[in-house]
């Protein structure tokens, strides 16, 4: 089975809950176990919060894209913002490093994305865009 979706939405933190719901809705036909769904939900939540808070610095006039697709063995999630970009991706990925400590960001976003997905790719162009790609392998929990 192959499937694809793309949603674009305003860069408001209030929309992060909506994207978690969208992601779960898109995957509903796969009959995934709750554990894997929770991991996907959390990883997406982190990537999208980063896009809004860091990529766009909370500029609500901007738009974030969430693209998801799957085949028989893996689910791919892409979160794209066209904001400030990441100067040093390795540094950004360091656990507990946050450029927004004063705003009580824990610096755990990339750690969680990394742990909760099987593959994590971050592409960024300074001043242009950041794209986070997460791949999750799965087995259907029930025979059809």
């Amino acid at each position, binding site marked *: 089975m192959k499937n694809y979706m793309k949603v674009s939405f305003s860069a408001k*933190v*209030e929309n*992060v*809950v909506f994207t*978690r719901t969208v992601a779960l809705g898109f995957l509903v036909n796969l009959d995934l176990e709750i554990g894997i769904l*929770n991991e996907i*939900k*959390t990883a997406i*939540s*982190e990537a999208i*919060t980063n896009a*809004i*808070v860091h990529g766009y610095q909370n500029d609500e006039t901007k738009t974030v894209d969430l693209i998801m697709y799957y085949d028989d063995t893996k689910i791919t999630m892409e979160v794209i913002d066209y904001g400030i970009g990441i100067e040093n991706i390795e540094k950004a990925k360091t*656990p*507990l490093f946050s450029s927004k400590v004063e*705003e*009580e*960001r*824990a*610096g*755990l*976003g990339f*750690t*969680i994305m990394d*742990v909760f997905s099987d593959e994590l790719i971050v592409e960024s162009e300074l001043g242009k865009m950041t794209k986070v790609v997460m791949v999750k392998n799965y087995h259907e929990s029930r025979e059809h």
Partner: protein
Amino acid sequence: MGLNVQMALKKNVLIIRLKGELDQSSVTNLKYRVSEIIDKYHIKNLVINMQEVAFMDSSGIGFIIGRYSQIKKRKGHIVICSMNEMVQRIFNLSGLKKICFVTKNEIEAEERLEIA
């Protein structure tokens, strides 16, 4: 779903019972409410009851770190109780174990702070 917050004062301990989802959006509001009460009543110790938290991302960890830095001046403690498996996994990734106590339920949390 949002976030429902119930707070109770017991001696110098603020008990926060959370129900719903902890993400950047809900945490922003929660942070203002809780930090104001901590300052107003000179709260030293916190119990955060996670029993009905259905979802938490790293914003929840940011919230706990923020409250810890608020009460550490008074040499206070934070006890996190009743975490479900998913919340526990995020918590374990955060290194917060080093600065917070963790208990199975609110009664044990109160015992830990000796207010039971």
